[in-house]
Protein backbone atom coordinates (compact mmCIF):
# COMPACT_ATOMS: atom_id res chain seq x y z
CA UNK A 1 0.00 0.00 0.00
CA UNK A 2 1.82 3.09 -1.21
CA UNK A 3 1.75 6.42 0.53
CA UNK A 4 -0.28 9.03 -1.27
CA UNK A 5 0.65 12.66 -1.66
CA UNK A 6 -2.58 13.73 -3.31
CA UNK A 7 -5.98 12.06 -3.40
CA UNK A 8 -8.58 13.37 -5.83
CA UNK A 9 -12.17 12.13 -5.94
CA UNK A 10 -14.90 13.17 -8.31
CA UNK A 11 -13.41 16.54 -9.09
CA UNK A 12 -15.41 18.82 -11.32
CA UNK A 13 -14.92 22.43 -12.33
CA UNK A 14 -17.35 24.61 -14.17
CA UNK A 15 -16.37 27.96 -15.54
CA UNK A 16 -18.85 30.64 -16.36
CA UNK A 17 -17.97 32.45 -19.54
CA UNK A 18 -18.93 36.03 -19.66
CA UNK A 19 -18.34 38.76 -17.19
CA UNK A 20 -15.04 38.50 -15.42
CA UNK A 21 -14.42 40.67 -12.45
CA UNK A 22 -11.21 41.63 -14.18
CA UNK A 23 -12.98 41.96 -17.50
CA UNK A 24 -13.83 45.50 -16.83
CA UNK A 25 -17.06 47.11 -17.64
CA UNK A 26 -18.56 50.41 -16.66
CA UNK A 27 -21.12 51.09 -13.98
CA UNK A 28 -23.42 52.58 -16.58
CA UNK A 29 -23.36 49.40 -18.69
CA UNK A 30 -23.89 47.21 -15.69
CA UNK A 31 -26.90 49.16 -14.54
CA UNK A 32 -28.41 49.19 -18.02
CA UNK A 33 -27.87 45.48 -18.40
CA UNK A 34 -29.48 44.88 -15.07
CA UNK A 35 -32.51 46.92 -16.08
CA UNK A 36 -32.83 45.12 -19.41
CA UNK A 37 -32.88 41.76 -17.70
CA UNK A 38 -35.77 42.64 -15.40
CA UNK A 39 -38.79 42.00 -17.64
CA UNK A 40 -37.56 38.66 -19.02
CA UNK A 41 -36.04 37.16 -15.87
CA UNK A 42 -36.94 33.49 -15.68
CA UNK A 43 -36.85 31.79 -19.07
CA UNK A 44 -34.25 33.85 -20.85
CA UNK A 45 -31.83 33.93 -18.00
CA UNK A 46 -31.64 30.18 -17.47
CA UNK A 47 -30.96 29.74 -21.14
CA UNK A 48 -28.22 32.32 -20.89
CA UNK A 49 -26.53 30.61 -17.95
CA UNK A 50 -26.52 27.33 -19.80
CA UNK A 51 -24.80 28.85 -22.81
CA UNK A 52 -22.32 30.76 -20.75
CA UNK A 53 -20.78 27.96 -18.71
CA UNK A 54 -18.68 24.94 -19.51
CA UNK A 55 -17.13 22.11 -17.56
CA UNK A 56 -13.32 22.22 -17.61
CA UNK A 57 -13.05 19.10 -15.47
CA UNK A 58 -15.55 16.28 -15.16
CA UNK A 59 -15.71 13.70 -12.40
CA UNK A 60 -11.96 13.31 -12.16
CA UNK A 61 -10.43 10.87 -9.69
CA UNK A 62 -6.72 10.31 -9.28
CA UNK A 63 -4.15 9.09 -6.78
CA UNK A 64 -0.70 10.65 -6.81
CA UNK A 65 1.95 8.62 -5.03
CA UNK A 66 4.47 10.27 -2.79
CA UNK A 67 7.89 10.57 -4.39
CA UNK A 68 6.65 10.28 -7.97
CA UNK A 69 6.94 12.74 -10.79
CA UNK A 70 3.57 12.76 -12.45
CA UNK A 71 3.22 14.16 -15.93
CA UNK A 72 -0.03 15.79 -16.93
CA UNK A 73 -0.52 16.08 -20.67
CA UNK A 74 -3.33 16.89 -23.03
CA UNK A 75 -4.41 19.29 -25.70
CA UNK A 76 -5.12 22.92 -24.97
CA UNK A 77 -8.35 23.15 -23.10
CA UNK A 78 -8.17 19.58 -21.81
CA UNK A 79 -8.19 20.79 -18.22
CA UNK A 80 -4.62 20.27 -17.10
CA UNK A 81 -3.99 23.84 -16.03
CA UNK A 82 -7.35 23.91 -14.30
CA UNK A 83 -6.47 20.80 -12.34
CA UNK A 84 -3.19 22.32 -11.28
CA UNK A 85 -4.85 25.55 -10.27
CA UNK A 86 -7.28 23.68 -8.06
CA UNK A 87 -4.42 21.80 -6.44
CA UNK A 88 -2.59 25.10 -5.95
CA UNK A 89 -5.77 26.51 -4.38
CA UNK A 90 -5.91 29.37 -6.77
CA UNK A 91 -9.45 28.38 -7.72
CA UNK A 92 -12.17 26.31 -6.06
CA UNK A 93 -13.73 23.12 -7.39
CA UNK A 94 -17.42 22.99 -8.31
CA UNK A 95 -17.71 19.34 -7.29
CA UNK A 96 -15.60 16.75 -5.58
CA UNK A 97 -12.87 16.62 -3.03
CA UNK A 98 -9.10 16.78 -2.90
CA UNK A 99 -6.92 15.66 -0.03
CA UNK A 100 -3.33 16.84 0.04
CA UNK A 101 -0.75 15.24 2.28
CA UNK A 102 2.07 17.74 2.40
CA UNK A 103 3.16 21.31 1.88
CA UNK A 104 2.49 22.57 -1.62
CA UNK A 105 4.53 25.00 -3.66
CA UNK A 106 3.51 25.97 -7.15
CA UNK A 107 4.82 27.77 -10.16
CA UNK A 108 1.96 28.29 -12.53
CA UNK A 109 3.47 31.01 -14.60
CA UNK A 110 6.97 32.32 -14.71
CA UNK A 111 7.69 35.89 -13.76
CA UNK A 112 4.46 36.45 -11.95
CA UNK A 113 4.98 38.45 -8.84
CA UNK A 114 7.84 40.46 -10.24
CA UNK A 115 7.52 44.12 -9.55
CA UNK A 116 9.37 46.19 -12.17
CA UNK A 117 10.45 48.94 -9.74
CA UNK A 118 12.09 46.58 -7.29
CA UNK A 119 15.56 45.13 -7.69
CA UNK A 120 16.37 41.52 -8.46
CA UNK A 121 17.31 40.96 -4.84
CA UNK A 122 14.01 42.39 -3.58
CA UNK A 123 12.07 40.39 -6.12
CA UNK A 124 13.69 37.13 -5.05
CA UNK A 125 12.32 37.66 -1.57
CA UNK A 126 8.93 38.74 -2.83
CA UNK A 127 8.61 35.82 -5.22
CA UNK A 128 9.88 33.36 -2.69
CA UNK A 129 7.25 34.50 -0.25
CA UNK A 130 4.54 34.35 -2.88
CA UNK A 131 5.31 30.77 -3.78
CA UNK A 132 5.43 29.69 -0.17
CA UNK A 133 8.95 30.10 1.20
CA UNK A 134 9.65 31.57 4.61
CA UNK A 135 12.13 34.40 4.90
CA UNK A 136 14.67 32.18 6.68
CA UNK A 137 14.44 29.66 3.86
CA UNK A 138 15.06 32.32 1.26
CA UNK A 139 18.01 33.69 3.24
CA UNK A 140 19.59 30.24 3.36
CA UNK A 141 19.16 29.61 -0.34
CA UNK A 142 19.76 33.12 -1.60
CA UNK A 143 23.24 32.51 -2.92
CA UNK A 144 22.26 29.32 -4.74
CA UNK A 145 19.30 31.04 -6.34
CA UNK A 146 21.45 33.89 -7.60
CA UNK A 147 24.13 31.55 -8.88
CA UNK A 148 21.61 29.42 -10.73
CA UNK A 149 19.99 32.38 -12.45
CA UNK A 150 23.21 34.00 -13.57
CA UNK A 151 22.10 37.58 -12.83
CA UNK A 152 24.65 38.25 -10.08
CA UNK A 153 25.92 41.53 -11.49
CA UNK A 154 22.44 42.95 -11.88
CA UNK A 155 21.10 41.93 -8.51
CA UNK A 156 20.64 45.46 -7.28
CA UNK A 157 19.19 46.89 -10.48
CA UNK A 158 15.43 47.27 -10.90
CA UNK A 159 13.95 44.33 -12.73
CA UNK A 160 12.42 46.58 -15.36
CA UNK A 161 15.95 46.90 -16.76
CA UNK A 162 16.32 43.15 -17.18
CA UNK A 163 15.90 41.44 -20.51
CA UNK A 164 12.94 39.07 -20.67
CA UNK A 165 15.35 36.14 -20.67
CA UNK A 166 16.92 37.32 -17.44
CA UNK A 167 13.55 37.83 -15.81
CA UNK A 168 12.45 34.37 -16.70
CA UNK A 169 15.67 32.78 -15.48
CA UNK A 170 15.42 34.60 -12.18
CA UNK A 171 11.81 33.59 -11.64
CA UNK A 172 12.54 29.99 -12.40
CA UNK A 173 15.58 29.95 -10.13
CA UNK A 174 13.50 30.99 -7.17
CA UNK A 175 11.06 28.17 -7.85
CA UNK A 176 13.84 25.70 -8.48
CA UNK A 177 15.10 26.19 -4.94
CA UNK A 178 11.69 26.06 -3.41
CA UNK A 179 11.55 22.72 -1.71
CA UNK A 180 8.02 21.92 -0.73
CA UNK A 181 6.87 18.34 -0.23
CA UNK A 182 4.68 18.66 -3.31
CA UNK A 183 5.71 20.84 -6.25
CA UNK A 184 3.29 21.85 -8.98
CA UNK A 185 4.78 23.10 -12.25
CA UNK A 186 2.78 24.38 -15.19
CA UNK A 187 4.71 24.49 -18.47
CA UNK A 188 7.62 26.34 -16.97
CA UNK A 189 10.48 24.11 -17.98
CA UNK A 190 10.58 25.46 -21.49
CA UNK A 191 12.12 28.76 -20.52
CA UNK A 192 15.41 30.33 -21.37
CA UNK A 193 17.96 29.03 -23.84
CA UNK A 194 18.97 25.40 -24.29
CA UNK A 195 21.75 25.60 -21.72
CA UNK A 196 19.39 26.92 -19.12
CA UNK A 197 16.75 24.37 -19.98
CA UNK A 198 19.27 21.61 -19.49
CA UNK A 199 20.25 23.05 -16.11
CA UNK A 200 16.57 23.20 -15.13
CA UNK A 201 15.99 19.59 -16.07
CA UNK A 202 18.94 18.45 -13.98
CA UNK A 203 17.75 20.54 -11.06
CA UNK A 204 14.24 19.10 -11.30
CA UNK A 205 15.65 15.59 -11.28
CA UNK A 206 17.64 16.23 -8.12
CA UNK A 207 14.64 17.82 -6.43
CA UNK A 208 12.68 14.66 -6.98
CA UNK A 209 15.44 12.33 -5.85
CA UNK A 210 14.96 13.76 -2.36
CA UNK A 211 11.58 12.07 -2.19
CA UNK A 212 9.39 14.98 -3.13
CA UNK A 213 6.35 14.67 -5.29
CA UNK A 214 6.10 16.69 -8.48
CA UNK A 215 3.14 17.24 -10.77
CA UNK A 216 4.30 18.61 -14.08
CA UNK A 217 2.19 19.99 -16.89
CA UNK A 218 3.97 20.32 -20.19
CA UNK A 219 3.56 20.31 -23.93
CA UNK A 220 7.18 19.29 -24.29
CA UNK A 221 7.15 15.52 -24.69
CA UNK A 222 10.92 15.30 -24.26
CA UNK A 223 10.76 16.80 -20.77
CA UNK A 224 7.85 14.53 -19.89
CA UNK A 225 9.64 11.45 -21.12
CA UNK A 226 12.89 12.23 -19.35
CA UNK A 227 11.36 13.24 -16.03
CA UNK A 228 8.07 11.55 -15.35
CA UNK A 229 7.68 8.19 -13.69
CA UNK A 230 4.05 8.07 -14.71
CA UNK A 231 1.75 10.25 -16.78
CA UNK A 232 -1.92 11.12 -17.01
CA UNK A 233 -3.52 12.10 -20.30
CA UNK A 234 -6.49 14.45 -20.16
CA UNK A 235 -8.97 15.15 -22.87
CA UNK A 236 -11.88 17.56 -22.52
CA UNK A 237 -11.79 17.46 -18.76
CA UNK A 238 -11.58 13.71 -18.27
CA UNK A 239 -8.77 11.23 -17.71
CA UNK A 240 -8.32 9.22 -20.87
CA UNK A 241 -5.27 7.30 -19.76
CA UNK A 242 -3.21 7.01 -16.62
CA UNK A 243 -0.06 4.96 -16.34
CA UNK A 244 3.17 4.48 -18.24
CA UNK A 245 4.68 7.64 -19.64
CA UNK A 246 5.56 6.15 -23.03
CA UNK A 247 2.02 4.90 -23.55
CA UNK A 248 0.49 8.21 -22.48
CA UNK A 249 2.72 10.20 -24.79
CA UNK A 250 1.91 7.91 -27.71
CA UNK A 251 -1.81 8.28 -27.15
CA UNK A 252 -1.42 12.03 -26.81
CA UNK A 253 0.43 12.26 -30.11
CA UNK A 254 -2.23 10.08 -31.62
CA UNK A 255 -4.94 12.42 -30.45
CA UNK A 256 -2.99 15.40 -31.71
CA UNK A 257 -2.64 13.75 -35.08
CA UNK A 258 -6.38 13.24 -35.32
CA UNK A 259 -7.07 16.94 -34.89
Amino acid at each position, binding site marked *: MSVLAIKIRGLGKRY*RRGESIFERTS*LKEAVLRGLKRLPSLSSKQSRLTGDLSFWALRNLSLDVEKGSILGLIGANGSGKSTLLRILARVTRPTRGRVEIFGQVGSL*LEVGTGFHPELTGRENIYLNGAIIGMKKKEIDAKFDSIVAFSGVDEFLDTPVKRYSSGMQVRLAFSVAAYLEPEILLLDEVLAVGDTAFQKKSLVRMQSVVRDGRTVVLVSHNMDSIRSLCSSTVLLDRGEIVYSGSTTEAVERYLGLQGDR
Partner: protein
Amino acid sequence: MCSDPEKPLVVIEANRSNLLIDWDEYLEKRDLFWFLALRDLKVRFKQAALGAAWAILKPLAMMAVFVVFLGHAMGFPTDGVPYPVFYYSGLVFWNFFATGLAVSSDSLLGNSFLVTKVYCPILYIPAAPVVAQFLDLGMSFSMLIALTMYYGIWPSIRIIIIPGLVLITLASTLGVGLLFSPLVAKYRDFQNLMAVLVQMWFFMSPVIYPSTAVPAGWKVLYSLNPMVGAIEGLRWAVVGQGPFPTVAIGVGLVSAISLLCVGFLSFIRSSNNLADFV
Protein backbone atom coordinates in the same frame (compact mmCIF):
# COMPACT_ATOMS: atom_id res chain seq x y z
CA MET B 1 8.63 18.15 9.33
CA CYS B 2 6.65 15.10 8.26
CA SER B 3 2.94 15.14 7.86
CA ASP B 4 0.91 12.33 9.31
CA PRO B 5 0.19 10.00 6.39
CA GLU B 6 -3.25 9.19 7.73
CA LYS B 7 -4.53 12.72 7.96
CA PRO B 8 -4.47 15.15 5.04
CA LEU B 9 -2.73 18.46 5.58
CA VAL B 10 -5.16 20.26 3.34
CA VAL B 11 -8.63 19.37 2.16
CA ILE B 12 -10.13 21.14 -0.82
CA GLU B 13 -13.81 20.60 -1.20
CA ALA B 14 -16.60 21.97 -3.30
CA ASN B 15 -19.54 23.56 -1.53
CA ARG B 16 -17.67 24.79 1.50
CA SER B 17 -19.15 27.91 2.96
CA ASN B 18 -18.05 31.02 1.17
CA LEU B 19 -17.33 32.86 4.36
CA LEU B 20 -14.85 30.39 5.77
CA ILE B 21 -11.37 31.78 6.10
CA ASP B 22 -8.51 29.49 6.87
CA TRP B 23 -6.93 31.60 9.61
CA ASP B 24 -4.16 29.05 10.18
CA GLU B 25 -3.11 29.54 6.61
CA TYR B 26 -3.07 33.31 7.09
CA LEU B 27 -0.79 32.95 10.08
CA GLU B 28 1.42 30.52 8.23
CA LYS B 29 1.94 32.87 5.31
CA ARG B 30 2.50 36.02 7.37
CA ASP B 31 5.95 36.57 5.86
CA LEU B 32 4.18 37.25 2.59
CA PHE B 33 2.04 39.91 4.23
CA TRP B 34 5.09 41.82 5.43
CA PHE B 35 6.72 41.51 2.03
CA LEU B 36 3.65 42.96 0.37
CA ALA B 37 3.50 45.85 2.82
CA LEU B 38 7.23 46.48 2.42
CA ARG B 39 6.90 46.33 -1.34
CA ASP B 40 4.19 48.97 -1.27
CA LEU B 41 6.40 51.23 0.83
CA LYS B 42 9.43 50.76 -1.39
CA VAL B 43 7.50 51.40 -4.57
CA ARG B 44 5.78 54.49 -3.22
CA PHE B 45 9.00 56.00 -1.99
CA LYS B 46 10.99 55.14 -5.07
CA GLN B 47 8.40 56.71 -7.31
CA ALA B 48 7.84 59.91 -5.35
CA ALA B 49 10.19 62.69 -6.32
CA LEU B 50 11.33 63.35 -2.78
CA GLY B 51 10.99 59.82 -1.53
CA ALA B 52 10.20 59.37 2.12
CA ALA B 53 10.26 63.12 2.75
CA TRP B 54 7.04 63.35 0.76
CA ALA B 55 5.17 61.69 3.60
CA ILE B 56 5.85 64.72 5.78
CA LEU B 57 5.87 67.41 3.10
CA LYS B 58 2.46 66.65 1.62
CA PRO B 59 0.43 67.30 4.79
CA LEU B 60 2.64 70.29 5.58
CA ALA B 61 1.96 71.76 2.18
CA MET B 62 -1.78 71.23 2.55
CA MET B 63 -1.66 72.74 6.00
CA ALA B 64 0.13 75.79 4.64
CA VAL B 65 -2.58 76.32 2.03
CA PHE B 66 -5.33 76.04 4.65
CA VAL B 67 -3.52 78.36 7.07
CA VAL B 68 -3.06 81.05 4.45
CA PHE B 69 -6.36 80.91 2.63
CA LEU B 70 -8.84 79.59 5.16
CA GLY B 71 -7.29 80.87 8.35
CA HIS B 72 -5.73 84.22 7.61
CA ALA B 73 -7.58 85.28 4.48
CA MET B 74 -11.07 83.99 5.33
CA GLY B 75 -10.87 83.87 9.11
CA PHE B 76 -12.48 80.41 9.43
CA PRO B 77 -13.11 79.50 13.06
CA THR B 78 -10.76 77.10 14.79
CA ASP B 79 -12.05 77.37 18.35
CA GLY B 80 -9.01 79.36 19.36
CA VAL B 81 -6.50 76.73 18.37
CA PRO B 82 -3.49 78.13 16.45
CA TYR B 83 -4.09 77.66 12.73
CA PRO B 84 -1.20 75.31 11.88
CA VAL B 85 -1.96 73.02 14.82
CA PHE B 86 -5.65 72.95 14.02
CA TYR B 87 -5.25 72.08 10.35
CA TYR B 88 -2.35 69.69 10.75
CA SER B 89 -4.15 67.73 13.44
CA GLY B 90 -7.08 67.40 11.07
CA LEU B 91 -4.83 66.14 8.31
CA VAL B 92 -2.98 63.42 10.23
CA PHE B 93 -5.82 60.93 10.31
CA TRP B 94 -7.47 62.24 7.17
CA ASN B 95 -4.38 61.51 5.07
CA PHE B 96 -4.13 58.02 6.51
CA PHE B 97 -7.73 57.42 5.55
CA ALA B 98 -7.67 59.00 2.11
CA THR B 99 -4.34 57.54 1.00
CA GLY B 100 -5.07 54.20 2.64
CA LEU B 101 -8.37 54.07 0.83
CA ALA B 102 -6.74 54.94 -2.48
CA VAL B 103 -4.05 52.26 -2.25
CA SER B 104 -6.27 49.51 -0.93
CA SER B 105 -9.07 50.05 -3.40
CA ASP B 106 -6.56 49.84 -6.25
CA SER B 107 -4.92 46.76 -4.81
CA LEU B 108 -7.00 44.05 -6.46
CA LEU B 109 -6.81 45.61 -9.87
CA GLY B 110 -3.08 46.19 -9.68
CA ASN B 111 -2.31 42.74 -8.31
CA SER B 112 -4.59 40.54 -10.35
CA PHE B 113 -1.82 37.97 -10.71
CA LEU B 114 -1.85 37.44 -6.95
CA VAL B 115 -5.44 36.33 -7.29
CA THR B 116 -5.34 34.36 -10.50
CA LYS B 117 -1.87 32.84 -10.73
CA VAL B 118 -0.72 32.02 -7.24
CA TYR B 119 -2.17 31.15 -3.90
CA CYS B 120 -2.19 34.30 -1.85
CA PRO B 121 -4.44 34.71 1.17
CA ILE B 122 -6.77 37.18 -0.43
CA LEU B 123 -7.26 39.52 2.51
CA TYR B 124 -3.58 40.36 2.38
CA ILE B 125 -3.96 42.20 -0.88
CA PRO B 126 -6.04 45.18 0.26
CA ALA B 127 -4.78 45.05 3.84
CA ALA B 128 -1.01 45.19 3.25
CA PRO B 129 -0.84 48.67 1.66
CA VAL B 130 -3.07 50.06 4.44
CA VAL B 131 -0.71 48.73 7.08
CA ALA B 132 2.17 50.26 5.13
CA GLN B 133 0.54 53.63 5.82
CA PHE B 134 1.61 53.35 9.45
CA LEU B 135 5.03 54.60 8.50
CA ASP B 136 3.50 57.80 7.12
CA LEU B 137 1.31 58.02 10.19
CA GLY B 138 4.30 57.78 12.52
CA MET B 139 6.08 60.56 10.69
CA SER B 140 2.97 62.76 10.71
CA PHE B 141 2.57 62.27 14.44
CA SER B 142 6.15 63.33 15.08
CA MET B 143 5.56 66.43 13.01
CA LEU B 144 2.36 67.16 14.92
CA ILE B 145 4.06 66.91 18.30
CA ALA B 146 6.81 69.22 17.05
CA LEU B 147 4.23 71.74 15.84
CA THR B 148 2.28 71.75 19.10
CA MET B 149 5.43 72.22 21.13
CA TYR B 150 6.42 75.13 18.91
CA TYR B 151 3.14 76.80 19.89
CA GLY B 152 3.78 76.13 23.55
CA ILE B 153 1.31 73.28 23.89
CA TRP B 154 2.78 70.31 25.70
CA PRO B 155 1.73 66.65 25.48
CA SER B 156 -0.22 65.43 28.48
CA ILE B 157 -1.82 62.27 29.78
CA ARG B 158 -4.62 62.78 27.28
CA ILE B 159 -2.55 61.28 24.50
CA ILE B 160 -3.37 57.90 25.97
CA ILE B 161 -6.51 57.76 23.87
CA ILE B 162 -4.57 58.06 20.63
CA PRO B 163 -4.10 54.31 20.06
CA GLY B 164 -7.88 53.95 20.26
CA LEU B 165 -8.28 56.69 17.68
CA VAL B 166 -5.75 54.97 15.44
CA LEU B 167 -7.84 51.82 15.66
CA ILE B 168 -10.97 53.71 14.66
CA THR B 169 -9.18 55.15 11.65
CA LEU B 170 -7.66 51.80 10.73
CA ALA B 171 -10.99 49.99 10.94
CA SER B 172 -12.71 52.60 8.79
CA THR B 173 -9.96 52.65 6.16
CA LEU B 174 -9.86 48.87 5.92
CA GLY B 175 -13.63 48.60 5.88
CA VAL B 176 -14.13 51.02 3.04
CA GLY B 177 -11.08 49.73 1.17
CA LEU B 178 -12.41 46.17 1.34
CA LEU B 179 -15.78 47.38 0.15
CA PHE B 180 -14.40 49.33 -2.78
CA SER B 181 -11.57 47.16 -4.10
CA PRO B 182 -13.74 44.60 -5.93
CA LEU B 183 -15.75 47.49 -7.36
CA VAL B 184 -12.66 49.26 -8.64
CA ALA B 185 -11.44 46.04 -10.24
CA LYS B 186 -14.72 45.40 -11.98
CA TYR B 187 -16.03 48.81 -12.98
CA ARG B 188 -13.88 51.16 -15.06
CA ASP B 189 -15.69 54.28 -13.96
CA PHE B 190 -15.93 53.45 -10.30
CA GLN B 191 -12.71 55.28 -9.58
CA ASN B 192 -14.32 58.51 -10.78
CA LEU B 193 -17.27 57.93 -8.51
CA MET B 194 -14.88 57.16 -5.70
CA ALA B 195 -13.01 60.44 -6.20
CA VAL B 196 -16.27 62.33 -5.75
CA LEU B 197 -17.22 60.28 -2.70
CA VAL B 198 -13.89 60.92 -1.04
CA GLN B 199 -14.16 64.64 -1.69
CA MET B 200 -17.61 64.71 -0.11
CA TRP B 201 -16.28 62.71 2.81
CA PHE B 202 -13.55 65.30 3.29
CA PHE B 203 -16.10 68.04 3.78
CA MET B 204 -18.21 65.86 6.02
CA SER B 205 -15.22 65.46 8.36
CA PRO B 206 -13.94 68.19 10.68
CA VAL B 207 -10.62 68.58 8.89
CA ILE B 208 -10.90 72.27 8.06
CA TYR B 209 -13.56 73.27 10.56
CA PRO B 210 -14.28 72.34 14.18
CA SER B 211 -17.22 70.05 14.79
CA THR B 212 -18.67 72.71 17.07
CA ALA B 213 -19.72 74.33 13.80
CA VAL B 214 -22.25 71.52 13.39
CA PRO B 215 -25.66 72.27 14.97
CA ALA B 216 -26.25 70.32 18.20
CA GLY B 217 -29.27 68.46 16.88
CA TRP B 218 -27.23 66.91 14.09
CA LYS B 219 -24.41 65.79 16.34
CA VAL B 220 -25.21 62.09 16.44
CA LEU B 221 -25.88 61.80 12.71
CA TYR B 222 -22.72 63.72 11.99
CA SER B 223 -20.73 61.41 14.25
CA LEU B 224 -21.73 58.39 12.21
CA ASN B 225 -18.73 59.37 10.14
CA PRO B 226 -15.97 57.67 12.14
CA MET B 227 -13.44 60.29 11.01
CA VAL B 228 -15.35 62.81 13.14
CA GLY B 229 -14.53 60.91 16.31
CA ALA B 230 -10.96 60.26 15.24
CA ILE B 231 -10.16 63.86 14.32
CA GLU B 232 -11.99 65.51 17.19
CA GLY B 233 -10.43 63.00 19.54
CA LEU B 234 -6.95 63.79 18.25
CA ARG B 235 -7.49 67.53 18.63
CA TRP B 236 -8.74 67.04 22.18
CA ALA B 237 -5.81 64.76 23.05
CA VAL B 238 -3.19 67.07 21.65
CA VAL B 239 -4.56 70.54 22.40
CA GLY B 240 -6.72 69.83 25.41
CA GLN B 241 -9.42 72.42 24.95
CA GLY B 242 -13.03 71.66 25.65
CA PRO B 243 -14.79 68.56 26.90
CA PHE B 244 -13.94 65.01 25.93
CA PRO B 245 -15.83 64.27 22.69
CA THR B 246 -17.79 61.31 24.06
CA VAL B 247 -20.56 61.24 21.48
CA ALA B 248 -18.22 61.62 18.55
CA ILE B 249 -15.87 58.89 19.70
CA GLY B 250 -18.58 56.57 20.95
CA VAL B 251 -20.67 56.71 17.81
CA GLY B 252 -17.55 56.75 15.66
CA LEU B 253 -16.24 53.57 17.25
CA VAL B 254 -19.46 51.68 16.61
CA SER B 255 -19.58 53.04 13.08
CA ALA B 256 -15.97 52.07 12.35
CA ILE B 257 -16.50 48.51 13.55
CA SER B 258 -19.66 48.20 11.46
CA LEU B 259 -17.85 49.50 8.41
CA LEU B 260 -15.12 46.93 8.92
CA CYS B 261 -17.64 44.08 9.23
CA VAL B 262 -19.62 45.17 6.20
CA GLY B 263 -16.46 45.64 4.16
CA PHE B 264 -15.10 42.28 5.24
CA LEU B 265 -18.28 40.35 4.45
CA SER B 266 -18.79 42.02 1.11
CA PHE B 267 -15.17 41.46 0.11
CA ILE B 268 -15.23 37.78 0.96
CA ARG B 269 -18.42 37.28 -1.01
CA SER B 270 -17.25 39.02 -4.14
CA SER B 271 -13.72 37.67 -4.04
CA ASN B 272 -14.66 34.03 -3.90
CA ASN B 273 -14.65 33.33 -7.56
CA LEU B 274 -12.27 35.99 -8.71
CA ALA B 275 -9.75 33.52 -10.05
CA ASP B 276 -12.31 31.89 -12.28
CA PHE B 277 -13.18 34.73 -14.51
CA VAL B 278 -10.04 35.06 -16.50
